[in-house]
């Protein structure tokens, strides 16, 4: 039986490349699956098979495939601008736009020799938790096609979980890497704010946006993070610090010794008295994961972070406020759509018609909310107050990290919910981000790693660490992953094709 290249981890792909496989062969294997399955899955917005094959062949020709990441395919969320490759951020207002430059994340992946498979679907301008706000198509969860893949990086999560990409870039503003990773059984990491360049990310909420890896394993995520991380003079909020050593921490974590590590369970995120909205199955899997960490030598205690209760309201003021300002750039003048320019209408009218037609409902809701929160007379009561709550949340983290090395929680209160079930209720949709918002507001790193199934759907376990201590996230996540893989006898994602194969066999 030949090896299915689309189920391999990145170190396995690197080994295959050294062992005679070609970048073109690997790229074709993923393109074949995209051609066969993506019409139903909806993970990609743009795929250019000829360009991908040409790129892979060039890397084979250069003889570099297998060194570092050269020859490894990658999918990139459509919020990252890519030179000459259509980039929409999931919005009609940018339909057909081909950026004239590469964002830093895309440029670093290119210079590492990776092969761009395509641009992945997302909630419009990354505003959403289900990818249902994409202006283009629905993305389905590979574990259950009637359910959401999470959002806003739902195209990336679906592509990797289904084997339509070995790994992918996502972005996280309030949970948009971690929540879709959790709901599709992936590892997803939101780096410390400022540690991965935002240059060339189409901005949603600038004080929160951060790109990061979504992958099949903790080690894969660490390798991808190392490839994109580090200081960038083109992003003035970029932290001037060396690229962190992460893959080594993941390997060390997988050895399973957590003695000396102190783990804090956040009471406000699913703990006693705070279980409203949390599914029992999710809480049970998380408790099992904590017990597993304890069995590997970690000391576990409960930590209270009272301000986390206000993370959701603070976030849904700060993010829309920044968005209402950031999205003013879409004015129909320099790029994208222009509507109603008939020679009679003035600029204001053309702008209003362009934005009305080019933006979807959630984007308009957030622009209006942000405009309100920033208006004089309401600024202090809403935006100003939210910024002070942000300080309280950071203080809770600082107090917590004075006592423990990492804080843990569920990544999401529930498993993936059915498509369409929350689209008419923004407040219910926002609750999907309940557990991921505190780390976003404080700018600290946080990873989601699978911790089992509930109702046959993946559950994510979140590990948060102090700023610039991303290595702790990887170390603890790798320990948990290795222990669970050993108990299961396979990797988490390997359950999915096996289950599907069994279902097909059973039906025959």
């Amino acid at each position, binding site marked *: 039986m030949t090896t299915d290249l689309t189920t391999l981890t990145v170190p396995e792909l690197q080994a295959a490349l050294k062992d005679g496989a070609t970048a073109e062969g690997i790229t074709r294997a993923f393109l074949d699956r995209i051609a066969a399955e993506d019409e139903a899955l909806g993970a990609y917005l743009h795929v250019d098979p000829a360009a991908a094959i040409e790129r892979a062949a060039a890397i084979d020709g250069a003889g570099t495939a297998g060194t570092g990441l050269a020859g490894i395919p990658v999918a990139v969320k459509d919020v990252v601008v890519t030179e000459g490759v259509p980039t929409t951020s999931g919005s009609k207002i940018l339909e057909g*736009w*081909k950026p*004239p*430059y590469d964002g830093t994340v895309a440029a670093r992946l290119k210079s590492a020799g990776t092969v761009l498979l395509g641009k992945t679907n997302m909630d419009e301008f990354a505003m959403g938790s289900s990818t249902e706000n994409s202006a283009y198509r629905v993305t389905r969860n590979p574990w259950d096609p009637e359910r959401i893949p999470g959002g806003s990086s739902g195209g990336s999560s679906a592509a990797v979980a289904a084997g339509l990409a070995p790994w992918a870039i996502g972005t996280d503003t309030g949970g948009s890497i971690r929540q879709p990773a959790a709901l599709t059984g992936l590892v997803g990491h939101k780096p410390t704010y400022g540690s991965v360049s935002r240059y060339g990310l189409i901005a949603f909420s600038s*004080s929160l946006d951060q790109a990061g890896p979504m992958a099949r394993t903790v080690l894969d995520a660490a390798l991808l993070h190392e490839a994109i991380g580090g200081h960038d003079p083109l992003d*003035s*909020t970029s932290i001037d610090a060396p690229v962190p050593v992460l893959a080594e921490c993941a390997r060390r974590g997988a050895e399973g010794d957590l003695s000396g590590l102190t783990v804090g369970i956040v009471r406000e995120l699913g703990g006693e008295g705070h279980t409203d909205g949390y599914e029992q199955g999710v809480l049970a899997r998380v408790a099992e994961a904590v017990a597993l960490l304890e069995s590997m030598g970690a000391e576990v205690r409960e930590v209270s972070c009272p301000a986390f209760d*206000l993370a*959701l*309201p*603070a976030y*849904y003021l700060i993010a829309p406020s920044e968005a*209402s300002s950031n999205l003013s750039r879409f004015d129909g*003048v*320099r*790029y*994208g*759509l*222009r*509507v109603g*320019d*008939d*020679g009679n*209408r*003035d*600029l*204001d*009218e*053309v*702008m*209003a*018609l362009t*934005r*009305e*037609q080019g*933006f979807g409902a959630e984007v*308009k*809701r957030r*622009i*209006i*909310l942000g405009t*309100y929160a920033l*208006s004089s*007379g309401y600024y202090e*009561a*809403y935006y100003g*107050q939210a*910024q*002070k*709550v*942000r*300080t*309280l949340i*950071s203080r809770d983290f600082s107090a917590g990290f004075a006592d423990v090395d990492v804080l843990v929680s569920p990544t999401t209160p529930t498993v993936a919910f059915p498509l369409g079930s929350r689209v008419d*209720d*923004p*407040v219910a949709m*926002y609750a999907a981000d309940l557990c991921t918002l505190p780390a976003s*507001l404080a*700018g600290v790193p946080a990873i989601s790693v699978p911790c089992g199934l509930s109702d046959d759907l993946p559950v994510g376990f979140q590990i948060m660490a102090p700023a610039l201590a991303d290595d702790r996230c990887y170390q603890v996540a790798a320990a948990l992953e290795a222990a669970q893989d050993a108990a299961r006898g396979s990797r988490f994602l390997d359950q999915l094709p096996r289950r599907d194969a069994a279902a097909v066999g059973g039906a025959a």
Partner: protein
Amino acid sequence: MEFHPSMSTLSRKDVAHLARLARLAVTDEELDLYAGQLSAVLDAVAQVQKAPVEDVPPTTHAVPMTNVFREDVARPSLPPEVVLAGAPAAEDGRFRVPRILGRRRDDSRASIAGSASDRGAERGAESRGGMA
């Protein structure tokens, strides 16, 4: 401000005013929808007002930084034709914009009725400087 919503409620009129400020030519149906939905959202986010924040400074940014400098060295910019290639309308090596001065309606919000008929025509107008 010309609108005075009670806390945590946005009327249809408030939403219309905010949409005008944000240059969104929203439809009547959207006004109905958003007024209800945004009132529910405002109810939820108004909880921040309960926070004990006396003497708490605001956080504008997770990583406090000021005065990030770079060397004052000239770098090449993108060529004009590359930049203008993505513009909805360009003329003489510049972005062409609709009229910005002159006739002004009482209500600066563009009429909704006009938008539908313009949708098809718009795409063809690319970079030719309009259809006049």
